């Protein structure tokens, strides 16, 4: 296989707050190859958005990327080394802030956010914003940029683009605004687009249209995507490979078909089981018990053990590192769960433990601000 377009290794992003250090992203690694759509799934608070902002180095104080490597097309977006005194400092080949701003963001890696109203300026026309973006990033004249902007609007399915060019964001529906942002992201033909829950706020019908459009455009421009979502149905529909995140870690990583049909991590199975199905009537839903613990003070051992129906004593003690569990010759399928033989830490012999999942529902205070129970 060729080199990955983007390669993230052991990325750690932490937020230093008064209450303690929030380890929002805690050592995740994944690759994105050319022309593929990679999913990043998880519940709210799993660290998905922090991970994507870290890739663009958009994490602001009190947050900081504290470790790991991010390589993009052979260039180092982030990398640390030890200096003579033993302190960590950025490596020399790491891109400077101005290089990131001028060359990478928008041109090479574009991002589409969840809320299109907040990404567009309400006091400028939609066309004007798109034109300005194209003008600056592609060094076109104003007139040429306008032509290009109208062409892009037509490309993403905005009706009557010439007349809508002069309208303001509030005159567009949510789906239309999201199309404008996708047009903006595609305008510089970047190699990678990060889509951070772009269809979550939209109706299913509109979501369907947009996903279909993204797939068409993706084939046409051969752009890679990182698709951040909490919706397994969206993952099933468009992703090639999927990373499942839980509490700052990637706990399972597989091709989309393997993830759904050969699920290796109990969290992924629980997530799939908890969804109501549109195509059949389910008598009772099986929710994941409890809530996600806080990232300030994650549970010892496996982070999911407090909610896991299959938790054993050993899960509380051993912190599983994700391992490749695929048989030889198959596509890689990694999971971080000690129940698999590959870990060999005595899961079988270990006694089952009482957790929220096994001991019935308890509304424990584990969320932000809950304080000590």
């Amino acid at each position, binding site marked *: 296989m060729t080199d990955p377009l983007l390669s993230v290794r052991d990325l750690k992003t932490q937020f230093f707050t008064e209450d303690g250090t929030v380890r929002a992203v805690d050592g995740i690694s994944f690759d994105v190859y050319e022309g593929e759509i990679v999913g990043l799934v998880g519940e709210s608070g799993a660290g998905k958005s922090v991970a994507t902002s870290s890739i663009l180095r958009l994490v602001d104080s009190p947050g900081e990327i504290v470790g790991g490597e991010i390589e993009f097309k052979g260039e180092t977006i982030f990398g640390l080394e030890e200096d003579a005194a033993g302190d960590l400092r950025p490596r020399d080949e790491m891109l400077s802030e101005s290089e990131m701003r001028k060359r990478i963001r928008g041109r090479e890696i574009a991002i589409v956010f969840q809320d299109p109203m907040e990404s567009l300026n309400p006091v400028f026309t939609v066309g004007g914003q798109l034109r300005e973006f194209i003008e600056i990033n592609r060094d076109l004249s104003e007139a040429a940029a306008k032509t290009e902007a109208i062409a892009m609007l037509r490309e993403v399915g905005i009706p009557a683009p010439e007349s809508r060019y002069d309208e303001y964001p509030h005159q567009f529906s949510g789906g239309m605004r999201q199309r404008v942002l996708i047009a903006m992201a595609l305008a510089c033909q970047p190699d990678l687009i990060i889509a951070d829950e772009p269809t979550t706020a939209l109706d299913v019908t509109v979501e369907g249209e947009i996903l279909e459009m993204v797939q068409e455009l993706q084939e046409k421009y051969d752009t890679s995507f990182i698709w951040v979502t909490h919706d397994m149905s969206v993952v099933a529909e468009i992703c090639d490979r999927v990373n499942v995140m839980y509490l700052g870690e990637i706990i399972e990583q597989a091709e989309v078909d393997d993830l*759904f049909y050969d699920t290796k991590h109990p969290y992924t199975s629980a997530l799939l089981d908890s969804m109501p199905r549109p195509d059949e009537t389910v008598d009772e839903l099986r929710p994941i018990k409890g809530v996600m613990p806080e990232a300030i003070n994650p549970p010892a051992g496996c982070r999911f053990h407090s909610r896991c129906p299959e938790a054993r004593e050993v899960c509380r003690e051993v912190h599983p590192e994700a391992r490749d569990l695929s048989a030889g010759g198959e596509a890689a399928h990694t999971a971080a769960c000690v129940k698999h033989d590959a870990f060999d830490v005595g899961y079988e012999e270990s006694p089952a433990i009482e957790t929220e999942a096994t001991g019935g529902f308890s509304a424990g205070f584990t969320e932000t601000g809950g304080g000590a129970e």
Partner: protein
Amino acid sequence: MSEVGPPESDPDALLQVRNLEKHFDNESGLLAGVEFTDEFPYVSQSASDVRAVDGVDFDIKEGETLGLVGESGCGKSTLARTVLRLLEPTAGSVYFQGADLASLSGEPLRRKRKDMQMIFQDPQSSLDPRMKVGPIVEEPMKAHGMLDDEGREARAKELLTKVGLDPQHYNRYPHAFSGGQRQRVNLARALSVNPDLIVCDEPVSALDVSIQAQVLNTMEELQAEFDLTYLFIAHDLSVIRHISDRVAVMYLGNIVELAEKEELFENPRHPYTRALLDAIPVPDPRSGGRTALLSGDVPSPIDPPSGCRFRTRCPKVIQPEAYDMRDDAWRNLVAFQRAVDRREFEATDPDVLRSRYFEDAIPSGDAGTLLDEALGHIERDEWDDAERILVERFVDESVCATAEPAYEVESVLGDDRHYAACHLRRNEAVASAVDEAATPVGPKTPEADD
């Protein structure tokens, strides 16, 4: 209009909504709706109301869950608020336990409110951040003069337990709870006055899937325990399928289909319901994805399409009587008309357009002549003229545009009534109440177009 649509006064019904309308003023202020013209008297008053809910009928039986589903902007939330008289209805009636809420006001209405409660979408903003959870739950009891201080506290604690929280949480503030837990507090508050009906406006759509399932399960348990009736609004059909007994599908202020859950999901008789069902993503990579998506946006409720409101996006618009086109030629023509309406293409050469939109079938005869005329206009860049021909001579002639559909068809699954507002059902309907519009089309020859 007597034998079609939702059944007439059903003795079991807890809530009966009849021809309910809610219109909003589009503009406000001194000169609202005033238009200046060139002719005497130079000013005119124009009515440009937003017709958010426009003639809705349905019943909810005691102890059932009626799911109400539709895209954003179709009027679901306005309907819910109007049913509860949080908004003044423009017309129509809402009978709740026999009394017409639309005509009540003042103290009698306030007392009725005790029996109907609401849960909102955003669990964060529906709880006062400066009040502790206990007092929040007690507030409705206080407003309705139920119990004394200790009695209320005891009941609040009991309810907190019932909704799956800890009675110890009585003294905590809402910010200390997660989204799912806050929605449980909302449930406890709604339950505190022992209501008969709870209107739930997207209660789980702001929650993560795993939490969503927990809350849905709790809601079902509570329904069984307290004998509750739910009007459950959601845009997520998976959730609707899970929780509802009967389902109403809403489009642009109207209910277009209403049937038992299984019947509606397995045997939808309205193209809009079909389209919505096709659009739901299935969490299964082998399902092949979604098919046949709707195109275009929901039209404005200020000036909704005549006849069937879905006709501007409907994949199955019926061919006007005047023509005798092959079905695929008619479909191509409709697709072409929509493309012109959206100015979807730049090419103006008739041959290019013909091969792009009418490759497999092109209308012949009268229809063909009109199409040639429209293509000629496009070639000369006269888009509006082309559009006028396509709309006036074809689309507006269809029965879908001239008559409002209202049919009742036989249910395949279950024995409940099945209401479907689509002219495709005109030949199989067991009852109909089609309102022929001002311009009647000639005598109808029955034909199946399905």
